[in-house]
Protein backbone atom coordinates (compact mmCIF):
# COMPACT_ATOMS: atom_id res chain seq x y z
CA UNK A 1 0.00 0.00 0.00
CA UNK A 2 1.38 3.40 -0.96
CA UNK A 3 0.39 6.19 1.36
CA UNK A 4 0.09 9.76 0.17
CA UNK A 5 1.01 11.15 3.57
CA UNK A 6 2.98 9.28 6.22
CA UNK A 7 3.65 10.83 9.59
CA UNK A 8 5.88 8.77 11.87
CA UNK A 9 6.50 9.43 15.53
CA UNK A 10 6.41 13.19 15.01
CA UNK A 11 7.16 15.55 17.88
CA UNK A 12 7.14 19.30 17.83
CA UNK A 13 7.44 22.11 20.37
CA UNK A 14 7.65 25.89 20.23
CA UNK A 15 10.72 27.00 22.20
CA UNK A 16 10.92 23.61 23.92
CA UNK A 17 7.29 23.76 25.09
CA UNK A 18 5.96 20.59 23.46
CA UNK A 19 2.83 20.88 21.34
CA UNK A 20 2.54 17.20 20.50
CA UNK A 21 4.61 14.04 20.84
CA UNK A 22 4.79 10.74 19.03
CA UNK A 23 2.16 11.42 16.39
CA UNK A 24 1.95 8.68 13.73
CA UNK A 25 -0.68 8.20 11.06
CA UNK A 26 -1.06 7.51 7.37
CA UNK A 27 -3.40 8.87 4.75
CA UNK A 28 -4.29 6.63 1.83
CA UNK A 29 -4.14 7.85 -1.74
CA UNK A 30 -7.39 9.44 -2.87
CA UNK A 31 -9.03 9.47 0.53
CA UNK A 32 -10.65 12.35 2.39
CA UNK A 33 -9.17 12.33 5.86
CA UNK A 34 -10.41 14.52 8.69
CA UNK A 35 -8.18 15.91 11.40
CA UNK A 36 -10.26 16.40 14.49
CA UNK A 37 -9.55 17.85 17.90
CA UNK A 38 -10.40 20.66 20.28
CA UNK A 39 -8.86 24.16 20.04
CA UNK A 40 -5.17 24.22 20.81
CA UNK A 41 -4.62 20.51 20.25
CA UNK A 42 -1.97 21.19 17.59
CA UNK A 43 -3.86 20.67 14.35
CA UNK A 44 -2.57 23.79 12.62
CA UNK A 45 0.93 23.13 13.98
CA UNK A 46 0.78 19.63 12.51
CA UNK A 47 -0.17 21.13 9.15
CA UNK A 48 2.68 23.59 9.32
CA UNK A 49 5.07 20.71 9.98
CA UNK A 50 3.68 18.86 6.95
CA UNK A 51 4.24 21.97 4.81
CA UNK A 52 7.71 22.28 6.41
CA UNK A 53 6.92 25.83 7.54
CA UNK A 54 8.09 24.58 10.92
CA UNK A 55 11.14 22.43 11.53
CA UNK A 56 10.05 19.50 13.67
CA UNK A 57 12.24 18.14 16.42
CA UNK A 58 11.97 14.42 15.78
CA UNK A 59 10.10 11.92 13.69
CA UNK A 60 9.47 12.07 9.98
CA UNK A 61 6.88 13.20 7.47
CA UNK A 62 6.81 11.90 3.94
CA UNK A 63 4.57 12.92 1.08
CA UNK A 64 4.20 10.41 -1.73
CA UNK A 65 7.22 8.56 -0.37
CA UNK A 66 9.53 11.63 -0.15
CA UNK A 67 10.78 13.20 3.05
CA UNK A 68 9.38 16.76 3.17
CA UNK A 69 12.51 18.10 4.83
CA UNK A 70 14.61 17.03 1.85
CA UNK A 71 12.31 18.66 -0.70
CA UNK A 72 13.00 22.10 -2.10
CA UNK A 73 10.19 24.63 -1.65
CA UNK A 74 9.40 24.65 -5.37
CA UNK A 75 9.28 20.84 -5.55
CA UNK A 76 7.13 20.50 -2.45
CA UNK A 77 4.66 23.01 -3.91
CA UNK A 78 4.06 20.59 -6.78
CA UNK A 79 3.17 17.84 -4.28
CA UNK A 80 1.19 19.60 -1.56
CA UNK A 81 -1.27 22.47 -1.78
CA UNK A 82 -2.23 24.33 1.36
CA UNK A 83 -5.47 26.15 2.07
CA UNK A 84 -4.89 28.50 5.00
CA UNK A 85 -7.60 29.74 7.32
CA UNK A 86 -9.59 32.49 5.67
CA UNK A 87 -7.77 35.83 5.75
CA UNK A 88 -7.82 39.24 4.12
CA UNK A 89 -4.75 40.31 2.17
CA UNK A 90 -3.96 44.03 1.85
CA UNK A 91 -3.98 44.20 -1.94
CA UNK A 92 -7.16 43.92 -4.04
CA UNK A 93 -6.05 41.11 -6.37
CA UNK A 94 -8.82 39.86 -8.61
CA UNK A 95 -10.23 36.42 -7.92
CA UNK A 96 -8.77 35.03 -11.15
CA UNK A 97 -5.35 36.39 -10.21
CA UNK A 98 -5.49 34.77 -6.79
CA UNK A 99 -6.45 31.45 -8.36
CA UNK A 100 -3.68 31.88 -10.94
CA UNK A 101 -1.17 32.25 -8.09
CA UNK A 102 -1.77 28.56 -7.42
CA UNK A 103 -0.14 27.88 -10.80
CA UNK A 104 3.13 29.54 -9.70
CA UNK A 105 5.06 26.26 -9.15
CA UNK A 106 4.28 25.27 -12.75
CA UNK A 107 5.09 28.63 -14.35
CA UNK A 108 8.28 30.01 -15.89
CA UNK A 109 9.33 33.51 -16.87
CA UNK A 110 7.50 36.79 -16.20
CA UNK A 111 4.58 36.60 -18.58
CA UNK A 112 4.71 32.83 -18.89
CA UNK A 113 1.03 32.04 -18.44
CA UNK A 114 0.28 29.03 -20.63
CA UNK A 115 -3.00 27.79 -22.04
CA UNK A 116 -2.82 24.95 -19.53
CA UNK A 117 -2.58 27.45 -16.68
CA UNK A 118 -5.67 29.24 -17.96
CA UNK A 119 -7.56 25.97 -18.33
CA UNK A 120 -6.70 24.82 -14.81
CA UNK A 121 -7.69 28.19 -13.36
CA UNK A 122 -11.01 28.10 -15.17
CA UNK A 123 -11.68 24.48 -14.25
CA UNK A 124 -11.00 25.19 -10.58
CA UNK A 125 -13.28 28.23 -10.56
CA UNK A 126 -16.05 26.31 -12.32
CA UNK A 127 -15.72 23.38 -9.93
CA UNK A 128 -16.21 25.71 -6.97
CA UNK A 129 -18.88 27.69 -8.80
CA UNK A 130 -17.07 30.99 -8.40
CA UNK A 131 -16.36 31.78 -12.05
CA UNK A 132 -18.89 34.63 -11.93
CA UNK A 133 -16.59 36.26 -9.34
CA UNK A 134 -13.49 35.99 -11.55
CA UNK A 135 -13.15 39.74 -12.11
CA UNK A 136 -14.04 40.84 -8.57
CA UNK A 137 -11.37 41.97 -6.08
CA UNK A 138 -10.68 39.08 -3.72
CA UNK A 139 -10.48 41.17 -0.55
CA UNK A 140 -13.95 42.63 -1.06
CA UNK A 141 -15.66 39.22 -0.99
CA UNK A 142 -17.36 37.71 2.03
CA UNK A 143 -15.38 35.34 4.24
CA UNK A 144 -17.10 32.30 2.75
CA UNK A 145 -16.42 33.37 -0.81
CA UNK A 146 -12.77 33.99 0.03
CA UNK A 147 -12.55 30.48 1.44
CA UNK A 148 -13.91 29.11 -1.84
CA UNK A 149 -11.32 31.13 -3.77
CA UNK A 150 -8.50 29.71 -1.63
CA UNK A 151 -9.74 26.18 -2.28
CA UNK A 152 -9.91 26.95 -6.00
CA UNK A 153 -6.33 28.20 -5.82
CA UNK A 154 -5.22 24.94 -4.20
CA UNK A 155 -7.09 23.00 -6.91
CA UNK A 156 -5.39 25.00 -9.65
CA UNK A 157 -2.07 24.09 -8.04
CA UNK A 158 -2.88 20.58 -9.23
CA UNK A 159 -1.12 18.61 -6.51
CA UNK A 160 -1.76 15.03 -5.41
CA UNK A 161 -2.19 16.12 -1.78
CA UNK A 162 -4.20 19.02 -0.39
CA UNK A 163 -4.16 20.23 3.21
CA UNK A 164 -7.02 22.40 4.42
CA UNK A 165 -6.89 24.29 7.68
CA UNK A 166 -10.46 24.63 8.95
CA UNK A 167 -12.02 25.13 5.54
CA UNK A 168 -15.50 25.63 6.98
CA UNK A 169 -14.67 27.90 9.91
CA UNK A 170 -16.02 31.11 8.36
CA UNK A 171 -19.00 29.72 6.55
CA UNK A 172 -22.76 29.59 6.95
CA UNK A 173 -24.49 26.24 7.29
CA UNK A 174 -25.24 25.91 3.60
CA UNK A 175 -21.72 26.79 2.51
CA UNK A 176 -20.20 24.40 5.07
CA UNK A 177 -22.09 21.50 3.54
CA UNK A 178 -21.22 22.74 0.07
CA UNK A 179 -17.50 22.82 0.86
CA UNK A 180 -17.59 19.27 2.19
CA UNK A 181 -19.48 18.11 -0.91
CA UNK A 182 -16.87 19.78 -3.09
CA UNK A 183 -14.05 18.19 -1.09
CA UNK A 184 -15.71 14.80 -1.63
CA UNK A 185 -15.80 15.48 -5.35
CA UNK A 186 -12.15 16.53 -5.43
CA UNK A 187 -11.07 13.44 -3.54
CA UNK A 188 -13.20 11.23 -5.78
CA UNK A 189 -11.14 12.60 -8.68
CA UNK A 190 -8.01 11.20 -7.03
CA UNK A 191 -6.64 14.05 -4.91
CA UNK A 192 -5.81 13.08 -1.36
CA UNK A 193 -7.23 15.51 1.18
CA UNK A 194 -6.45 16.14 4.81
CA UNK A 195 -8.80 18.71 6.32
CA UNK A 196 -9.15 19.74 9.90
CA UNK A 197 -12.47 20.57 11.46
CA UNK A 198 -14.05 21.26 14.82
CA UNK A 199 -17.36 19.68 13.99
CA UNK A 200 -17.67 15.96 14.82
CA UNK A 201 -20.77 15.71 12.62
CA UNK A 202 -18.90 16.87 9.54
CA UNK A 203 -16.16 14.35 10.24
CA UNK A 204 -18.57 11.47 10.61
CA UNK A 205 -20.72 12.47 7.64
CA UNK A 206 -18.10 13.30 5.05
CA UNK A 207 -14.70 11.81 5.86
CA UNK A 208 -13.31 8.40 4.87
CA UNK A 209 -10.85 8.48 7.75
CA UNK A 210 -10.24 10.50 10.83
CA UNK A 211 -7.27 11.34 13.01
CA UNK A 212 -8.08 12.70 16.46
CA UNK A 213 -5.64 14.90 18.37
CA UNK A 214 -5.97 15.78 22.01
CA UNK A 215 -3.61 17.03 24.71
CA UNK A 216 -0.35 16.81 22.82
CA UNK A 217 -0.88 13.53 21.08
CA UNK A 218 -2.96 11.37 18.88
CA UNK A 219 -5.83 9.66 20.71
CA UNK A 220 -7.68 7.83 17.95
CA UNK A 221 -7.62 7.13 14.24
CA UNK A 222 -9.59 5.09 11.77
CA UNK A 223 -13.07 5.00 10.30
CA UNK A 224 -15.05 7.99 11.61
CA UNK A 225 -18.19 5.89 12.00
CA UNK A 226 -16.51 3.91 14.75
CA UNK A 227 -13.98 6.44 16.02
CA UNK A 228 -16.35 9.33 16.64
CA UNK A 229 -18.17 7.83 19.62
CA UNK A 230 -19.72 9.16 22.79
CA UNK A 231 -16.77 7.82 24.74
CA UNK A 232 -14.20 9.68 22.63
CA UNK A 233 -16.22 12.89 22.63
CA UNK A 234 -16.72 12.83 26.36
CA UNK A 235 -12.94 12.51 26.76
CA UNK A 236 -11.97 15.39 24.53
CA UNK A 237 -15.00 17.65 24.99
CA UNK A 238 -15.46 17.41 28.73
CA UNK A 239 -18.50 15.15 28.80
CA UNK A 240 -20.97 17.49 27.14
CA UNK A 241 -21.86 15.52 24.01
CA UNK A 242 -24.34 12.82 23.22
CA UNK A 243 -24.38 10.67 20.10
CA UNK A 244 -27.71 9.70 18.59
CA UNK A 245 -28.93 8.24 15.33
CA UNK A 246 -31.49 9.55 12.93
CA UNK A 247 -32.32 7.01 10.21
CA UNK A 248 -28.88 5.42 10.80
CA UNK A 249 -27.20 8.79 10.33
CA UNK A 250 -25.00 9.62 13.26
CA UNK A 251 -25.65 12.93 15.02
CA UNK A 252 -23.61 14.55 17.74
CA UNK A 253 -25.51 17.00 19.91
CA UNK A 254 -25.12 18.70 23.31
CA UNK A 255 -26.22 16.59 26.27
CA UNK A 256 -28.09 19.21 28.20
CA UNK A 257 -30.35 20.31 25.35
CA UNK A 258 -34.08 20.10 26.03
CA UNK A 259 -36.46 18.78 23.40
Amino acid at each position, binding site marked *: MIYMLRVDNLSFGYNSVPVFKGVSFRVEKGSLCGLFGPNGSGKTTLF*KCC*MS*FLKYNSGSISVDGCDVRKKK*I*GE*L*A*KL*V*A*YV*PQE*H*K*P*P*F*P*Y*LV*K*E*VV*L*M*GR*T*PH*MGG*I*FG*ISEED*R*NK*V*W*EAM*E*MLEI*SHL*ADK*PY*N*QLSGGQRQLVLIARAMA*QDTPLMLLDEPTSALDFCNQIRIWDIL*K*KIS*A*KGTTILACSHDPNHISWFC*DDVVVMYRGGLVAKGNPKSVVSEQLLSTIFNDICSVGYMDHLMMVYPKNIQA
Partner: protein
Amino acid sequence: MEEVSTDVKISPRPALDFFETRKLCIMLFLAVVMVAGGIITICLGTYHVSILEVYSIIATHLFSPDNVDSLNKLKNTIIWTIRFPRIIMAITVGIGLSVAGSIYQGCFHNPLVEPYILGVSSGAAFGAALGIVYPHIFISIQLGAFLFASLSVLLAYTLARNRGQTPVVTLVLAGVIIGSIFSACVSIMKYLSNDTQLREIVFWMMGGFYYTTWDDVYLTVPVVLISVAIMWFFGWKLNVLSMGDEEARAMGVNPEVFKFIFIVLATLVTAVCVSSVGIIAWVGLMMPHAARLIQGPDNRFVIPTAALMGGVYIIFCDTIARTLTSAEIPIGIITAIVGAPYLVYLLRSKEKEIFG
Protein backbone atom coordinates in the same frame (compact mmCIF):
# COMPACT_ATOMS: atom_id res chain seq x y z
CA MET B 1 -17.60 3.72 0.22
CA GLU B 2 -20.57 5.28 -1.53
CA GLU B 3 -20.17 6.61 -5.04
CA VAL B 4 -19.72 10.33 -5.47
CA SER B 5 -20.54 11.92 -8.75
CA THR B 6 -17.43 13.59 -10.15
CA ASP B 7 -19.04 15.16 -13.17
CA VAL B 8 -19.10 18.89 -12.70
CA LYS B 9 -20.48 20.89 -15.56
CA ILE B 10 -17.60 22.98 -16.83
CA SER B 11 -18.71 25.63 -19.25
CA PRO B 12 -16.37 26.64 -22.07
CA ARG B 13 -13.57 28.85 -20.90
CA PRO B 14 -13.64 32.53 -21.83
CA ALA B 15 -10.38 34.23 -22.87
CA LEU B 16 -9.43 34.73 -19.19
CA ASP B 17 -7.21 37.70 -19.76
CA PHE B 18 -4.25 38.20 -17.45
CA PHE B 19 -2.41 40.50 -19.82
CA GLU B 20 -4.69 43.27 -20.91
CA THR B 21 -3.98 45.48 -23.91
CA ARG B 22 -5.59 48.36 -22.02
CA LYS B 23 -2.85 48.17 -19.39
CA LEU B 24 -0.15 48.18 -22.06
CA CYS B 25 -1.72 51.22 -23.73
CA ILE B 26 -1.68 53.08 -20.43
CA MET B 27 2.01 52.28 -20.01
CA LEU B 28 2.75 53.39 -23.55
CA PHE B 29 0.84 56.63 -22.98
CA LEU B 30 2.79 57.32 -19.77
CA ALA B 31 6.08 56.65 -21.55
CA VAL B 32 5.13 59.21 -24.21
CA VAL B 33 4.13 61.71 -21.51
CA MET B 34 7.44 61.16 -19.74
CA VAL B 35 9.55 61.75 -22.84
CA ALA B 36 7.43 64.73 -23.91
CA GLY B 37 7.61 66.14 -20.40
CA GLY B 38 11.38 65.84 -20.48
CA ILE B 39 11.58 67.65 -23.82
CA ILE B 40 9.26 70.47 -22.75
CA THR B 41 10.84 71.06 -19.35
CA ILE B 42 14.35 71.18 -20.77
CA CYS B 43 13.32 74.42 -22.54
CA LEU B 44 11.86 75.96 -19.39
CA GLY B 45 13.84 77.92 -16.84
CA THR B 46 15.09 81.38 -16.03
CA TYR B 47 16.84 81.38 -19.39
CA HIS B 48 14.47 80.17 -22.11
CA VAL B 49 15.91 78.05 -24.89
CA SER B 50 13.75 76.98 -27.85
CA ILE B 51 13.10 73.32 -28.67
CA LEU B 52 15.02 73.57 -31.95
CA GLU B 53 18.10 74.93 -30.22
CA VAL B 54 17.86 72.19 -27.60
CA TYR B 55 17.62 69.63 -30.39
CA SER B 56 20.64 70.98 -32.22
CA ILE B 57 22.74 71.10 -29.04
CA ILE B 58 21.89 67.55 -28.01
CA ALA B 59 22.20 66.19 -31.53
CA THR B 60 25.62 67.80 -31.90
CA HIS B 61 26.84 66.24 -28.70
CA LEU B 62 25.48 62.81 -29.56
CA PHE B 63 26.27 62.52 -33.25
CA SER B 64 29.06 64.94 -34.07
CA PRO B 65 30.99 65.66 -30.89
CA ASP B 66 33.75 67.37 -32.89
CA ASN B 67 31.49 70.33 -33.66
CA VAL B 68 30.62 71.08 -30.03
CA ASP B 69 32.86 74.15 -30.03
CA SER B 70 30.76 75.79 -32.73
CA LEU B 71 27.73 75.92 -30.38
CA ASN B 72 26.65 78.97 -28.42
CA LYS B 73 28.73 78.69 -25.21
CA LEU B 74 26.05 79.88 -22.81
CA LYS B 75 23.24 77.81 -24.28
CA ASN B 76 25.48 74.78 -24.52
CA THR B 77 26.35 75.05 -20.84
CA ILE B 78 22.72 75.55 -19.80
CA ILE B 79 21.32 72.69 -21.84
CA TRP B 80 24.09 70.10 -22.01
CA THR B 81 25.93 70.65 -18.73
CA ILE B 82 23.07 71.68 -16.46
CA ARG B 83 19.54 70.86 -17.60
CA PHE B 84 19.96 67.66 -19.61
CA PRO B 85 21.76 65.60 -16.92
CA ARG B 86 19.40 67.09 -14.36
CA ILE B 87 16.31 65.91 -16.22
CA ILE B 88 17.75 62.45 -16.83
CA MET B 89 18.61 62.25 -13.16
CA ALA B 90 15.11 63.40 -12.18
CA ILE B 91 13.52 60.70 -14.31
CA THR B 92 15.89 58.05 -12.95
CA VAL B 93 15.31 59.00 -9.33
CA GLY B 94 11.54 59.05 -9.95
CA ILE B 95 11.72 55.57 -11.45
CA GLY B 96 13.98 54.27 -8.71
CA LEU B 97 12.03 55.54 -5.72
CA SER B 98 8.65 54.53 -7.16
CA VAL B 99 9.77 51.00 -7.97
CA ALA B 100 11.51 50.63 -4.61
CA GLY B 101 8.24 51.72 -2.98
CA SER B 102 6.21 49.15 -4.91
CA ILE B 103 8.69 46.43 -3.98
CA TYR B 104 8.76 47.31 -0.29
CA GLN B 105 4.95 47.46 -0.16
CA GLY B 106 4.70 44.00 -1.70
CA CYS B 107 7.40 42.49 0.52
CA PHE B 108 5.92 43.95 3.68
CA HIS B 109 2.35 43.04 2.69
CA ASN B 110 1.44 46.60 3.50
CA PRO B 111 0.38 49.38 1.13
CA LEU B 112 1.48 52.10 3.57
CA VAL B 113 5.17 51.27 3.50
CA GLU B 114 7.64 53.60 1.76
CA PRO B 115 11.23 53.04 0.64
CA TYR B 116 12.60 54.73 3.76
CA ILE B 117 10.96 52.23 6.14
CA LEU B 118 14.20 50.37 6.89
CA GLY B 119 16.10 53.51 7.82
CA VAL B 120 17.74 54.27 4.44
CA SER B 121 16.98 57.98 4.67
CA SER B 122 18.27 58.51 8.20
CA GLY B 123 21.39 56.49 7.43
CA ALA B 124 22.01 58.48 4.28
CA ALA B 125 21.41 61.76 6.10
CA PHE B 126 23.95 60.79 8.74
CA GLY B 127 26.50 59.81 6.10
CA ALA B 128 25.96 63.06 4.25
CA ALA B 129 26.21 65.08 7.47
CA LEU B 130 29.53 63.37 8.28
CA GLY B 131 30.78 64.31 4.83
CA ILE B 132 29.64 67.90 5.29
CA VAL B 133 31.02 68.42 8.79
CA TYR B 134 34.25 66.43 8.43
CA PRO B 135 35.23 66.91 4.78
CA HIS B 136 38.88 65.85 5.48
CA ILE B 137 37.94 62.44 6.84
CA PHE B 138 34.92 61.64 4.65
CA ILE B 139 36.00 62.76 1.22
CA SER B 140 32.70 62.44 -0.59
CA ILE B 141 29.26 63.38 0.73
CA GLN B 142 27.67 61.05 -1.78
CA LEU B 143 29.82 58.07 -0.85
CA GLY B 144 29.25 58.65 2.86
CA ALA B 145 25.51 58.85 2.31
CA PHE B 146 25.50 55.67 0.25
CA LEU B 147 27.59 53.71 2.75
CA PHE B 148 25.51 54.68 5.76
CA ALA B 149 22.23 54.18 3.88
CA SER B 150 23.28 50.61 3.07
CA LEU B 151 24.64 50.10 6.56
CA SER B 152 21.36 51.10 8.20
CA VAL B 153 19.37 48.56 6.17
CA LEU B 154 21.98 45.89 6.76
CA LEU B 155 21.73 46.53 10.50
CA ALA B 156 17.92 46.47 10.44
CA TYR B 157 17.90 43.24 8.45
CA THR B 158 20.45 41.55 10.72
CA LEU B 159 18.59 42.71 13.79
CA ALA B 160 15.32 41.25 12.47
CA ARG B 161 16.75 37.93 11.33
CA ASN B 162 16.18 35.10 13.73
CA ARG B 163 16.64 31.37 13.09
CA GLY B 164 16.69 31.73 9.33
CA GLN B 165 13.55 33.83 9.21
CA THR B 166 12.89 37.55 8.87
CA PRO B 167 9.33 38.23 10.01
CA VAL B 168 7.88 41.38 8.46
CA VAL B 169 6.76 42.98 11.73
CA THR B 170 10.18 42.50 13.32
CA LEU B 171 11.80 43.94 10.21
CA VAL B 172 9.65 47.08 10.32
CA LEU B 173 10.35 47.53 14.03
CA ALA B 174 14.06 47.00 13.46
CA GLY B 175 13.91 49.63 10.70
CA VAL B 176 12.22 52.09 13.05
CA ILE B 177 14.86 51.46 15.72
CA ILE B 178 17.82 51.85 13.36
CA GLY B 179 16.16 54.87 11.75
CA SER B 180 15.74 56.64 15.07
CA ILE B 181 19.32 55.89 16.10
CA PHE B 182 20.63 57.45 12.90
CA SER B 183 18.23 60.40 13.25
CA ALA B 184 19.72 61.02 16.67
CA CYS B 185 23.19 60.83 15.12
CA VAL B 186 22.13 63.41 12.53
CA SER B 187 21.02 65.67 15.38
CA ILE B 188 24.42 65.26 16.99
CA MET B 189 26.05 66.29 13.72
CA LYS B 190 23.77 69.32 13.46
CA TYR B 191 24.72 70.26 17.00
CA LEU B 192 28.43 69.94 16.24
CA SER B 193 28.33 71.79 12.92
CA ASN B 194 28.87 75.50 12.30
CA ASP B 195 26.26 77.70 10.63
CA THR B 196 27.31 77.08 7.03
CA GLN B 197 27.51 73.35 7.56
CA LEU B 198 24.16 73.29 9.36
CA ARG B 199 22.58 75.09 6.43
CA GLU B 200 24.09 72.59 4.05
CA ILE B 201 22.87 69.61 6.08
CA VAL B 202 19.34 71.00 6.22
CA PHE B 203 19.32 71.65 2.48
CA TRP B 204 20.69 68.21 1.72
CA MET B 205 17.93 66.62 3.76
CA MET B 206 15.23 68.42 1.78
CA GLY B 207 16.59 66.99 -1.45
CA GLY B 208 17.35 68.61 -4.75
CA PHE B 209 18.90 68.20 -8.16
CA TYR B 210 20.93 71.46 -8.08
CA TYR B 211 24.35 69.87 -8.31
CA THR B 212 23.59 67.07 -10.74
CA THR B 213 26.45 66.44 -13.17
CA TRP B 214 27.02 63.87 -15.87
CA ASP B 215 29.12 61.86 -13.41
CA ASP B 216 26.07 61.39 -11.19
CA VAL B 217 24.09 60.26 -14.20
CA TYR B 218 26.71 57.70 -15.24
CA LEU B 219 26.79 56.32 -11.72
CA THR B 220 23.08 56.25 -10.98
CA VAL B 221 21.33 55.38 -14.24
CA PRO B 222 22.84 51.90 -14.82
CA VAL B 223 22.38 50.82 -11.19
CA VAL B 224 18.76 51.96 -11.11
CA LEU B 225 17.75 50.61 -14.50
CA ILE B 226 19.37 47.20 -14.07
CA SER B 227 17.93 46.70 -10.58
CA VAL B 228 14.49 47.82 -11.72
CA ALA B 229 14.63 45.41 -14.65
CA ILE B 230 15.50 42.49 -12.35
CA MET B 231 12.74 43.38 -9.90
CA TRP B 232 10.23 43.71 -12.72
CA PHE B 233 11.26 40.27 -13.98
CA PHE B 234 10.25 38.83 -10.59
CA GLY B 235 6.96 40.79 -10.53
CA TRP B 236 4.76 37.70 -10.35
CA LYS B 237 6.78 36.29 -7.46
CA LEU B 238 6.20 39.58 -5.67
CA ASN B 239 2.45 39.08 -6.12
CA VAL B 240 2.70 35.69 -4.47
CA LEU B 241 5.00 37.04 -1.76
CA SER B 242 2.55 39.83 -0.94
CA MET B 243 -0.02 37.22 0.14
CA GLY B 244 2.15 36.38 3.14
CA ASP B 245 5.30 34.36 3.79
CA GLU B 246 3.70 31.01 4.53
CA GLU B 247 1.38 31.14 1.57
CA ALA B 248 4.24 32.11 -0.73
CA ARG B 249 6.10 29.05 0.53
CA ALA B 250 3.07 26.84 -0.06
CA MET B 251 2.95 28.12 -3.65
CA GLY B 252 6.60 27.36 -4.24
CA VAL B 253 8.15 30.81 -3.76
CA ASN B 254 10.87 30.82 -1.11
CA PRO B 255 9.95 33.90 0.94
CA GLU B 256 13.38 34.32 2.53
CA VAL B 257 15.27 34.18 -0.76
CA PHE B 258 12.92 36.54 -2.57
CA LYS B 259 12.52 38.95 0.32
CA PHE B 260 16.32 39.12 0.42
CA ILE B 261 16.66 39.74 -3.34
CA PHE B 262 13.91 42.36 -3.33
CA ILE B 263 15.11 44.18 -0.24
CA VAL B 264 18.74 44.24 -1.42
CA LEU B 265 17.84 45.59 -4.86
CA ALA B 266 15.22 48.07 -3.64
CA THR B 267 17.64 49.31 -0.99
CA LEU B 268 20.46 49.61 -3.50
CA VAL B 269 18.23 51.71 -5.76
CA THR B 270 17.00 53.89 -2.90
CA ALA B 271 20.49 54.38 -1.48
CA VAL B 272 21.94 55.34 -4.85
CA CYS B 273 19.12 57.83 -5.48
CA VAL B 274 19.11 59.33 -2.00
CA SER B 275 22.88 59.64 -1.82
CA SER B 276 23.02 61.69 -5.00
CA VAL B 277 19.95 63.91 -4.59
CA GLY B 278 19.06 63.87 -0.90
CA ILE B 279 15.83 62.78 0.71
CA ILE B 280 12.82 63.14 -1.56
CA ALA B 281 9.71 62.16 0.34
CA TRP B 282 6.33 60.88 -0.81
CA VAL B 283 7.20 59.65 -4.28
CA GLY B 284 7.89 56.09 -3.14
CA LEU B 285 4.63 55.97 -1.23
CA MET B 286 2.37 57.74 -3.70
CA MET B 287 3.36 56.40 -7.09
CA PRO B 288 2.76 52.70 -6.29
CA HIS B 289 -0.69 53.67 -4.97
CA ALA B 290 -1.52 55.66 -8.05
CA ALA B 291 -0.27 52.84 -10.30
CA ARG B 292 -2.35 50.29 -8.39
CA LEU B 293 -5.41 52.51 -8.73
CA ILE B 294 -5.06 52.55 -12.51
CA GLN B 295 -3.67 49.08 -13.22
CA GLY B 296 -4.88 46.91 -10.36
CA PRO B 297 -2.51 45.27 -7.88
CA ASP B 298 -0.69 42.88 -10.25
CA ASN B 299 2.95 43.88 -9.77
CA ARG B 300 3.91 42.91 -13.31
CA PHE B 301 2.02 46.08 -14.27
CA VAL B 302 2.36 48.11 -11.08
CA ILE B 303 6.17 48.18 -11.28
CA PRO B 304 6.53 49.69 -14.79
CA THR B 305 3.52 51.97 -14.35
CA ALA B 306 4.76 53.32 -11.01
CA ALA B 307 8.19 53.81 -12.59
CA LEU B 308 6.84 55.91 -15.45
CA MET B 309 4.52 57.91 -13.20
CA GLY B 310 7.41 58.53 -10.80
CA GLY B 311 9.54 59.82 -13.67
CA VAL B 312 6.80 62.18 -14.82
CA TYR B 313 6.08 63.35 -11.27
CA ILE B 314 9.67 64.18 -10.42
CA ILE B 315 10.34 66.12 -13.64
CA PHE B 316 7.14 68.03 -12.94
CA CYS B 317 8.10 68.82 -9.34
CA ASP B 318 11.71 69.62 -10.24
CA THR B 319 10.58 72.04 -12.91
CA ILE B 320 8.41 73.81 -10.34
CA ALA B 321 11.32 73.77 -7.93
CA ARG B 322 13.67 75.56 -10.33
CA THR B 323 11.23 77.89 -12.12
CA LEU B 324 8.66 79.00 -9.54
CA THR B 325 10.88 81.53 -7.82
CA SER B 326 14.20 83.10 -8.72
CA ALA B 327 15.89 80.92 -6.09
CA GLU B 328 15.63 77.14 -6.08
CA ILE B 329 13.13 75.50 -3.79
CA PRO B 330 14.22 72.11 -2.35
CA ILE B 331 12.24 69.48 -4.24
CA GLY B 332 11.29 67.56 -1.08
CA ILE B 333 9.01 70.47 -0.19
CA ILE B 334 7.33 70.45 -3.59
CA THR B 335 6.79 66.66 -3.72
CA ALA B 336 5.15 66.74 -0.30
CA ILE B 337 2.96 69.80 -0.97
CA VAL B 338 1.80 68.52 -4.35
CA GLY B 339 1.56 64.93 -3.15
CA ALA B 340 -0.30 65.24 0.12
CA PRO B 341 -3.59 66.51 -1.38
CA TYR B 342 -3.45 63.69 -3.91
CA LEU B 343 -3.15 61.13 -1.13
CA VAL B 344 -5.96 62.80 0.79
CA TYR B 345 -8.08 62.49 -2.33
CA LEU B 346 -7.23 58.80 -2.65
CA LEU B 347 -7.96 58.18 0.99
CA ARG B 348 -11.33 59.90 0.95
CA SER B 349 -12.68 58.76 -2.39
CA LYS B 350 -11.03 55.52 -3.38
CA GLU B 351 -10.31 54.01 -0.01
CA LYS B 352 -12.18 50.80 -0.72
CA GLU B 353 -10.55 50.18 -4.06
CA ILE B 354 -7.02 50.55 -2.79
CA PHE B 355 -7.11 49.42 0.78
CA GLY B 356 -9.89 46.84 0.43
